[in-house]
């Protein structure tokens, strides 16, 4: 077989995403190290990330409720492969730990980084606490990661 001809195109696309009202307030709260969830008026479920609508009850969300920057590690993993941050193109090398964290006062869990990368030191049910960036930017990675409290 002859060698195939390979034609390359590099994709360089830019999109501007409007945050929406809910995420805008959430992001502004982060600038003051404050975390607020949205609460459904029907099922009372407190949602993080905030969004315009409770998909379960099919009603708009308008109410806010404060939640703590501490909570429970409901799930965890240590990832050994690198991951690219699609916003910046910067690669996060492995190993790094991820968790699903239920902040005190919230009903959904948040996916976020955990500082501990030794699997022997991570377990479901542990208490964790947010570690904030010094210069806040109003984005979810103003929380650098969560650290294990126990």
């Amino acid at each position: 077989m002859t060698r195939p001809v390979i034609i390359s195109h590099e994709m360089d696309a830019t999109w501007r995403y409007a945050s929406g009202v809910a995420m805008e307030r959430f992001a502004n709260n982060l600038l003051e190290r404050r975390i607020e969830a949205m609460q459904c008026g029907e099922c009372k479920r407190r949602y993080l990330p905030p969004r315009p609508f409770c998909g379960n009850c099919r009603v708009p969300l308008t109410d806010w409720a404060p939640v703590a920057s501490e909570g429970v590690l409901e799930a965890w993993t240590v990832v050994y492969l690198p991951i690219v941050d699609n916003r910046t193109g910067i690669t996060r090398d492995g190993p790094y730990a991820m968790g699903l964290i239920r902040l005190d006062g919230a009903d959904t869990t948040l996916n976020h980084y955990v500082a501990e990368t030794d699997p022997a030191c991570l377990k479901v049910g542990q208490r964790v606490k947010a570690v904030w960036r010094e210069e806040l930017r109003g984005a979810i990675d103003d929380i650098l990661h969560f650290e294990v409290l126990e």
Partner: protein
Amino acid sequence: MTSASTPVAIAGWGQTGPLAEDLRSIPEMVLDAVQATLRNAAMGYEDIDAVVTASVDVFDGMTASNIAVTEVVGAVMKPETRIAADGLCAAIHAACQIRAGAYDTVLVVAHAKPSMSDFYELTKWALDPIFLQSLGIDFLTFAGLQAAAMAAEDKDAVERWAGLAACRLADASGDGKSPGSTEILQSALVTTPLREKMCAPLADGACACVLRRGDDSSPGRKEIRLSGLGHDLAANFIGDRELTESAGLERAAARAYADAGIKQPEDEIDVAEPSVAFAHEEELFVQSAGISDNTIISPHGGLFAGNVPIVAGLSRLTAAAEYLRRNNDLRAVAHGSWGPAGQGQAMVVLENAIP
């Protein structure tokens, strides 16, 4: 391909936009359109059995972009099908689901926000990467090539299109004011021979409608039915297509007419809502869909009020339904188109009906 099948009615519709730039997020826009639709249909989310959405990942800048709207369209724990093509295809598929007896009531939703990006730049990624993409051309280039082909042996074409654009812009403005032909002919050249004001302005928006079984409505109640469905995908390579006509639209229209039992479209269509993104496409539409001078075309200016890609065809369906709701005994066609020089075509026939 006539199918003696369950009639499909359009029960309500709504939209948000078109706006040159909608500062809201996609889920916020879609929520607005869906709520307007449910109000219009006098229904709630609980009345909806299934959802068909239309969006394109590259345009939304999001993989599986319907994830962003699953909640607001009410698809949590429900069936949702996402069609990555013009929204009229989503409506055709929803009508198929109802005819099949799979669902009784289906919500159809389309959205796009071209203000998020350089839309035509993104359309380059829809061209084959081996030959066409390497040329650096986009969908605008194709519109220009098609218009140029049509104008080549038709000296008056460009002036005529300027007149058409003036007419549609006036209808779209609401107050009848629009630039005159001369101003249009002096507007910036976008792609020869098309000038800026001959191109429907890109806009952000979302549109939705509810389709439902038409055979269980109360007797004597007026309703609007989707009586003919047709879509088509033409050959991709433009060298394989005769650009001065739209064989794809001819096929899509023939299928929709056969489905609706229309034998002479020139006499049987009262209103047409074509997807005309560039003025020359209206002439292609009239010719390929077999429409005569007796048909009212784009009474509110069609896409010249704002061309929202992907939403366009669905918004034509709801515009046609709106017209029929205000009248009796009429038949309309709605048209959608996608791809370079209208490679994809869709046509739906709507009519006033009394069960």
